[in-house]
């Protein structure tokens, strides 16, 4: 016996909503999903009218659905936003090539321009080259640092005022738990914020903060959205896997547990006296940094000098000259992106 949608009572129910367990039709699901994102955008004032917003696009489900939904809501509710897709090419053969093709298709499908920025352009090294140099032990650290800066630098190059990322509720819950497990109390206090870096030149927001990963997948599936999903080939992280599985299990016992974890993260009260690093600028490239040299410059210094562990472990003491003359070619490239940063007032 096929039942009707609980919400509209007219159309046939096609799915059970992971967040609420309601049995609803596709149209009501789209409406519910899109409306919730819209309400979050309004409630937390994520955007200002006329803002130029970079959508971090990896070609994966989160960013594809984000691009689709933002484009749609921008039209429907007249946010007046100037949207474009920003994609990072880490230089991982076989992985990134495919997802970049997806993003190129997204550009056409959603009618918004695409900008691709590569690690090679920004830093002089691709991930393949980095792994070739340092192996598989700390490559994720490199990629994480480089990606973060790449998004900021790419957005700055394109004169964006805000960056929107596709982090979803499951990601956020995972981050809260990981910070608990790692004992990172400082990160724990900041990680549930829906907007970060408001005091800097490029604030980032997470419109999908309360959207379940399962619902994002369902949305993409039913709407037949084009996305690419594989694990990064360089990323076996068993530890994160445990937490992911724990969250999945929690979800099956009590779906709202994911949102409850986020709520807990938001309610943690942390002693504010822990040393807050003073934000300054990197001497080499001008990127915002609490140290003399930003993390990317430190890592690059290590790569260029053939000292791969530089910048990974805390106990390193080293002399880094601020003009870094060791590899002229690579540093010239880095200089180029530096001047662009300075031009656009990125601290």
């Amino acid at each position: 016996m096929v039942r009707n949608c609980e919400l509209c009572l007219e159309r046939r129910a096609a799915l059970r909503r992971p967040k609420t367990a309601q049995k609803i039709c596709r149209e009501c699901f789209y409406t519910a999903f899109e409306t919730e994102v819209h309400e979050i955008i309004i409630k937390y004032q994520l955007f200002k009218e006329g803002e130029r917003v970079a959508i971090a696009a990896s070609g994966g489900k989160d960013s594809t659905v984000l691009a689709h939904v933002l484009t749609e809501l921008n039209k429907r509710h007249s946010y007046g936003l100037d949207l474009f897709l920003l994609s990072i090419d880490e230089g991982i053969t076989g992985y990134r090539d495919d997802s970049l093709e997806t993003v190129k298709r997204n550009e056409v499908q959603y009618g918004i321009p695409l900008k691709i920025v590569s690690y090679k352009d920004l830093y002089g090294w691709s991930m393949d080259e980095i792994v070739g140099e340092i192996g598989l032990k700390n490559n994720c650290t490199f990629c994480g640092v480089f990606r973060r800066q790449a998004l900021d630098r790419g957005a700055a190059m394109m004169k964006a005022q805000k960056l929107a990322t596709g982090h979803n509720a499951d990601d956020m819950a995972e981050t809260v738990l990981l910070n608990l497990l790692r004992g990172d109390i400082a990160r724990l206090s900041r990680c549930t914020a829906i907007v970060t870096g408001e005091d800097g030149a490029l604030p980032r927001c997470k419109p999908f903060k309360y959207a379940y990963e399962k619902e994002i997948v369902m949305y993409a599936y039913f709407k037949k959205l084009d996305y690419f999903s594989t694990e990064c080939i360089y990323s076996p992280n068993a530890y994160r896997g445990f937490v992911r599985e724990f969250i999945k299990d929690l979800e099956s016992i009590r779906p709202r547990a994911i949102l409850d974890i986020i709520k807990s993260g938001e309610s943690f009260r942390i002693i504010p006296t822990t040393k807050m690093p003073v934000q300054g600028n990197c001497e080499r490239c001008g990127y915002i940094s609490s140290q003399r040299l930003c993390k990317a410059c430190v890592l690059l210094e290590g790569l260029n000098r053939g000292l791969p562990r530089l910048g990974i472990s805390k106990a390193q003491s080293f002399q880094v000259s601020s003009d870094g003359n060791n590899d002229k070619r690579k540093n010239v490239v880095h200089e180029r992106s530096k001047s662009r940063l300075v031009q656009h007032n990125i601290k």
Partner: protein
Amino acid sequence: MKCKQKAGQVLGNQTEPMCKDCLRLSLLSKFKTGLNHQGAVGGSDKVLVAFSGGPGSRLALQFLCELQSKLQDEAESCKDRNSAVFDVGVAFVDESGAQGIPLTDAQKTLDEIASVVAEVRPTPLPLHLTSLESLFENEVLELQASSKLHEDDNSGKDNKDKSRQRLIELLSRVEDQTGKEDLVEHMRMDALQRVAKHYGYTRVVLGLCTTRVAARVLAATAKGEGFALPAGIQYVDARWPVPVLLPLRDCVSKELSVLCHLTNLKTVFLKKMTAMGNSRASINSLTHSFISLINEENPSREYTIMRTAAKLIPFGFNKLAQDDSMLHFNGRPRNPHARRNLGRIEPCEIEVLCPICSAPLAKSDFSSLQPKVSVSDSFTRMSLEEAFEPSTSGIDSELLPSKIFRDVCCPSCQYQIIPDQSKDSVLELLPLMVQQRAAASLLRKEGWMREYIGDCLLESDE
């Protein structure tokens, strides 16, 4: 290797092999540090150890009695008539009613518990056996280990049966498995508090260890209890009429279990709701098995979780109130500036507590200011302490309207224990003391709200 003399026997949490004696010293030293936090136990205290049968509470009991005997010897040898040594008692809460365990098996467990407790020290320890269903009885009745769980006279037996039935009925009406397990835990604490208060104990000691605290931290996070989380994981928890201490909080369960085994301390395994069952049955069992899993990957993980949570800001009631006498727990003056603790809470720091689980409520969880509710006279002017006494003014049958009751409950209890707004089915069976606490919390909440909007209130004849 710690002492570098004997062979290492256990790979402790410190990842350093330890022999039995070093392990013992390490755990004892942590216990003493935890116990002495804020000078929580002094010579005039009566300490009740909540014995669960497990290695944690068994060791807490063992260490406490050894400390007591050492201090008594010292007092005697010094002929110091002024230095009193604390008293020790043991309590056990029978939870067979919640597990569906038949009375005959439950009796066997009680006998085992009694025999383990009898071995702890030469002079027998006072053992108070109580049960979850005792919360439904007006007087603090005690089970006798030697006699049956039923009373011999019929009227007593009827009462006991009725209470047990009520317990079973109450739990069956809680549909959420996690909620059910949590409700049992809250009732266990209430039963302990009742016994402690009745027999004049001034402190309750729990054998809660790092491992279980870590599991609690994760489970509480998953239930959205992030605000209240710090309350139950500090060394001292003075929300309760009799303050609760967690001196073993920094000891991991592996070390406790191994030490019990190596020193031949008997433990009793109790089939609890979360034990030996399907790990996916509830959030509690899932987090327990998750902790075990990540400990395999890194044994120090549970300690990190506990330490991280311990860095969250605690509440006012996580400190004992001060007064002017200055005693160390061995009865000798510690230092001129040390203060003795009475267990009272400073009035300005009183939080509004959930009547079911006693979690402090976040102001943001209160619904917006409601019109002033008329609370019947019999509920006015009731303090937290009075709420623990059995009813004195015959208000058994008066229930707070469910909407009002729910408003002072924490979001977690609202969701998992009393979810159905339209029915009072669970509410009407909760122990009376829960209702009384709700009334007290309601008054406190109104007081807080009045203060908050104080400058807007006009003169009125209230």
